[in-house]
């Protein structure tokens, strides 16, 4: 009888230990936003650098959570999360082109979000299995440096569609980021070629490659090169261009009909070292106030429907993006781009 008692005690201790660990591991959503002193969040962000930093600073101010902010282009961030899969260093994957978030979800690199506000997002702005949530939306614009354009092309009308950018008249005149690194450029390649067969895709990418000179490292750098007058023409996300426009650079932005677009999304990395803080940060990003603020500082559109009143015009221009396909065909598209590079030279 004594022996049974001993084993029973051991059983109870074991069960208690297990549930104690579980309790400490799982975040408590109600409490998570209030006090995160002693927590440390590591974020891989591909949002525009100053926007990502501002978001983290505000989160720290509201919760006391310390953070480390690592800014990386989309493709690099995804590659890093993949590489660290067995031993994650970061807790949150923030922003960047959406195909990367989808790819991360498909590869089980991220885990379900607990934020209650997730259900309020339109289905197109969140993953069905809760692995990412859109926090800001922006279309891909054609960006023109007005003075440079006038100097080079005179009174010629500005291009109104992405296809017009393939014209040989623009050889060496388009600022573009390296699609192997930057999600901005990859979004354009995936969108333009999503309904093409292999031969047409190769032809399209070769034409574009011929018009592109030195590749920039990120979508934002590509826009900076238009703002500086290095190039008369470029392709970049509208929010990046608008931010430089607000700083007085003579930029003109054209959002084509049926424009390519992306979401800056937030995701919690699978087995994040500080999952509690990561889940709290995701919930914070989806708060109505954060979204409103984000749209003001980032020049992007919020994803919560009740705050989108100012952006209905932009939404009308959005095209149908097959993000799943963009993620799945990434290698093929990038290989074709690499061949296009050889053909173009």
């Amino acid at each position, binding site marked *: 009888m004594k022996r049974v008692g001993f084993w029973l005690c051991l059983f109870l201790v074991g069960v208690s230990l297990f549930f104690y660990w579980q309790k400490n591991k799982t975040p408590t959503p109600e409490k998570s936003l209030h006090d995160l002193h002693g927590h440390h969040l590591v974020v891989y962000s591909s949002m525009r650098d100053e926007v990502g930093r501002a978001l983290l600073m505000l989160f720290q101010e509201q919760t006391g959570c310390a953070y480390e902010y690592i800014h990386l282009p989309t493709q690099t961030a995804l590659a890093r999360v993949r590489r660290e899969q067995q031993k994650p260093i970061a807790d949150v994957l923030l922003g960047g082109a959406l195909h990367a978030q989808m790819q991360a979800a498909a590869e089980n690199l991220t885990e379900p979000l607990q934020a209650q506000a997730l259900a309020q997002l339109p289905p197109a702005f969140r993953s069905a299995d809760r692995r990412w949530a859109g926090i800001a939306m922006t279309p891909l614009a054609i960006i023109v440096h007005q003075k440079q354009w006038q100097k080079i092309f005179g009174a010629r009308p500005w291009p109104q569609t992405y296809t017009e950018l393939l014209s040989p008249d623009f050889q060496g005149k388009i600022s573009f980021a390296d699609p192997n690194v930057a999600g901005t450029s990859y979004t354009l390649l995936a969108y333009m070629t999503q309904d093409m067969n292999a031969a047409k895709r190769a032809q399209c990418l070769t034409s574009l490659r011929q018009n592109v000179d030195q590749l920039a490292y990120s979508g934002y750098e590509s826009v900076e090169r238009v703002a500086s007058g290095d190039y008369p023409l470029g392709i970049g996300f509208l929010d990046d261009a608008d931010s430089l426009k607000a700083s007085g*650079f003579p930029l003109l932005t054209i959002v084509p009909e049926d424009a390519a677009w992306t979401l800056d999304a937030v995701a919690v990395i699978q087995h994040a070292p500080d999952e509690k803080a990561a889940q709290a940060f995701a919930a914070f990003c989806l708060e109505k106030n954060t979204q409103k603020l984000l749209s003001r500082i980032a020049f992007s559109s919020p994803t919560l429907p009740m705050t989108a009143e100012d952006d209905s015009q932009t939404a009308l221009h959005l095209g149908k993006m097959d993000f799943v396909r963009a993620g799945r065909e990434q290698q093929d598209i990038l290989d074709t781009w690499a061949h296009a590079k050889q053909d173009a030279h």
Partner: protein
Amino acid sequence: MKTLRHKFAVMLLLAVGMLFACAGGILSWGRAFYGQTMVIESKEDALRHASVSMPVRIEWQDVYLGKGVAEDMPTLARLQSQIQTLRTSTPLQEAFLHQDAPRLQGTIIYLNGTRQDFALGKVFHIDGQSYSEEGGNLHALQNTFLETMFTAERLASLLADTKTFYITSNHLEESVPQAKQTQLREILRAAKPFTAEDASLALQIRAARPRFHLRIYFPSTGIYHGTQAERIVNVDVYDNDCLAMEYLGCTHGRWLYHAPGVQEVFAE
């Protein structure tokens, strides 16, 4: 028969209990080491444990921004980690090397006193090897160097050598007179960067419309052939004597500062 079944049930219960105990134990194991203090007995002991490849100072010269130094641990660790990442790629063969002048040249000084020179441009040269851009790592390293050294104080010192300095409004650029440039230099020297306490104000500023912009163009070096963007700094000036500086040669975005008196200088 009944006793046998009873014994079997007890054994099963015990097995499940053991399983939970083991799971709990294993999962708690990893947590046990956090927050513990490790005592290192002496300086010699610490040096024995430390890697000789630990940098204690990195100094460099940038063609546009001048001389930079990193001595604080977070910056050194960040730079070292980015350099190590670059060095994991396959070095370039001589035939594929770009012969362009580098943007940045410097020296890494290690704990044991050894020095290692490097150069960063379209490729990264170190220890007789050259590494190219792969996955954005080279650019990320350059961004870190530039972010580390770009401050209002540095901009003030650079203004002394800069001939092209404009105030812009409605895309029109108007040259800034020498007297005002001198005043601005003083203001920039005394400017205080925003801190974590300014998070709310920072958000207001980022959402606000600047009153005017200052545009500074660094002179061409003649040796290094970079982009025009690498020669441009934009400064947005706001109503409440706050300013936002952005260097178009890196992707950091805008740095915010309190700069009392900046509006007054350009009041008219």
